[in-house]
């Protein structure tokens, strides 16, 4: 009666686990909401290809792993590399990483470490650059290195107000560029950096076009879909990403003129902030949007913070372009690792105003200390401004789903009531 089965290798098992995680999120995005967007199909397929079928995207290319948004992808593209952002949202990898890191670590870092520990990549980075942003990422770099990967630290300052930190970061970026160009055996030139800057600038301008639609009264695109689009930028071929987003913009333009609204009439508009939702950890965004609210804007490093600020060059020469690129990643950053971070609070308030948000949902990963610590000041500021805010702590495990849903739903309903009272 019993047949002999071939048993999966650990990598196959890991892949299957990740595929199962991925597919359920993709399916939820595809199926749980009204008025699906046709051109989102590209992104669903992309994520299925990469995370369910594990097919490599960049065969034959040199892949440059980045641990945070602070590693300038402009320079990587200019030097013919493909940046792969290694922030990971898989519970599967989080579990692997849990064995290697303290219990109370950030799940994102655990997942990234777990990913490297298992050494199971469809597009394995040939070299990884790790900016010294938060403590956990910084230390994670060293742990990853111990697995036999090449990890190079790129010094990142913890303040952005002082001249010293500007200077330090500019020098860091320069030495990063030198190291990468040695690694690639290619010179960084005016023309290749300029075209890389413009290409990424164009990609960012497309993102801005997308977000513009979300200011409309009838929101034509869901927040989770936006997260997926921006998430794809972590690893996708940039030209294809641009092509797909161009189509998406065109479709949204139609939808906007037709007044298509993916949310309900009374759905509260949410501004999402906090630890980055990285595919497939769309737990909270999905709960929010499944609870009849709609995310109209976000302040996270997987989406808005990554795209919002564009490189501004004054003199299109190499010396100024490199400095402009470095400044983009330091000055505008609202990461909570900075000692003083009023900018983030102001940004959230501004997002609430310009996207006419009804409330803010602040999600922090359990173990993501800086977000957890900044929570108080943000909550206090929102209270001063009269903006309702919900603070949620969560991790990658699927277990808290019910409890989280209840909390979010209660918040959403209170927002609805507020809206009605105002009327």
């Amino acid at each position, binding site marked *: *009666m*019993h*047949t002999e*089965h071939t*048993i*999966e290798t*650990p990598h*196959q*098992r890991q892949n*299957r*686990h990740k*595929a*199962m*995680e*991925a*597919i*359920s999120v993709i*399916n939820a995005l*595809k*199926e749980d909401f009204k008025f699906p967007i046709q051109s989102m199909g590209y992104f669903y397929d992309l994520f*299925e290809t990469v995370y*369910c079928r594990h097919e490599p995207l960049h065969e034959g290319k040199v892949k440059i792993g980045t641990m945070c948004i602070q590693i300038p992808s402009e320079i990587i593209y200019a030097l013919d590399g493909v940046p792969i952002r290694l922030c990971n949202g898989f519970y599967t990898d989080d579990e692997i990483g849990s064995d290697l890191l303290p219990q109370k670590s950030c799940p994102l870092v655990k997942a990234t470490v777990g990913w490297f520990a298992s050494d199971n990549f469809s597009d394995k980075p040939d070299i990884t650059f790790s900016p010294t942003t938060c403590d956990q990422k910084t230390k994670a770099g060293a742990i990853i290195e111990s697995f036999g990967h090449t990890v190079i630290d790129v010094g990142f300052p913890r303040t952005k107000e002082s001249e010293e930190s500007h200077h330090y970061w500019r020098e860091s970026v320069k030495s990063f560029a030198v190291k990468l160009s040695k690694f690639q055996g290619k010179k960084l030139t005016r023309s290749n950096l300029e075209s890389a800057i413009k290409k990424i600038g164009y990609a960012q301008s497309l993102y801005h076009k997308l977000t513009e639609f979300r200011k409309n009264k009838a929101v034509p695109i869901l927040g989770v879909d936006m997260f997926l689009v921006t998430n794809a930028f972590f690893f996708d071929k940039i030209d294809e990403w641009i092509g797909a987003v161009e189509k998406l913009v065109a479709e949204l333009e139609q939808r906007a003129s037709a007044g298509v609204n993916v949310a309900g009439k009374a759905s509260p508009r949410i501004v999402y902030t906090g630890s980055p939702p990285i595919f497939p950890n769309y737990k909270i965004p999905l709960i929010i949007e499944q609870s009849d609210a709609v995310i109209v804007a976000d302040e996270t490093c997987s989406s808005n913070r990554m795209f919002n600020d564009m490189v501004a060059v004054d003199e299109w020469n190499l010396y100024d372009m490199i400095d402009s690129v470095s400044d983009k990643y330091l000055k505008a950053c609202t990461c909570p690792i900075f000692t003083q971070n009023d900018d983030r609070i102001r940004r959230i308030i501004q997002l609430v105003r310009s996207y006419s948000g009804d409330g803010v949902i602040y999600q922090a990963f359990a173990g993501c200390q800086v977000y957890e610590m900044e929570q108080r000041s943000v909550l206090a500021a929102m209270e001063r401004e009269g903006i309702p805010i919900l603070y949620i702590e969560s991790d990658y495990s*699927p277990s808290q*789903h019910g409890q989280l849903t209840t909390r979010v739903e209660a918040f959403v309903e209170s927002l609805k009531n507020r809206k009605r009272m105002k009327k």
Partner: protein
Amino acid sequence: MRYFVGIDIGSTAIKISVADENKNLVGHKISASGSMFYKYAQEALGELLRELGIEEKEVVYTVATGYGRKLFKEADENVSEITANAIGAQQAAKSYGEIKTIINIGGQDSKAISLDAEGNVVNFAMNDRCAAGTGKFLDVVAMNLEIGVDELSDYHFKSVGTPLSISSTCAVFAESEIIGLLGNNHSVEDIVSGVHYSIAKRIVKLVKRIGVKENVYFDGGPALNDGLVSAIENELGHKIFVPEYPQITTSYGAAVLACDAFMCE
């Protein structure tokens, strides 16, 4: 001849095994459990003995186990199903070799038992949530998919896509989830394999709680489902041993215990 009877009164079925003096399995019977399980148990025992041509007085020692063991007054002794399962598994797997870990999926619970070198129970864990990851759950799934429980295995191996996991741990919620998936035209095969993997993951988590050791023995009704076996093997990462009659391991263990008890006297 003296015979020993082990009787396992579970939530979904009553399993009876008869062993001889050499602890070999002479015969077994499975009959549905139910509200009148005491009566059913007596009837089933009578029927089995009749089939085997064994007279009642030849049965010298009876051991009851399972949820309903205390209610079976005729038994000479009661043992917990953990002990019975451990002994039965070791007896049944003699040809296979040493057993270190036992996975048991019953109708309404699932267990993992770890044994030491002498075959004593060192540790065990049971699922802490309702019917999730049990035989009952599989029944519900099969019913919703409108296929037979015995067909699940075939569907599992036919699956080509990514298994669609069921996130709800509760059988009742899972039901609606499955209906949703069907509504979105996902293939039954992927759903089935997804269900299997969801159960398998949960089981493996249970096993990991007590510390996985090699030589895993898998019994209980769902062990008949080859798809689930494969899923658990994949999750565990190594082969597991499934006995010929996975459902009766516990009752067989009880019969072996009865033999031992009688011999000691």
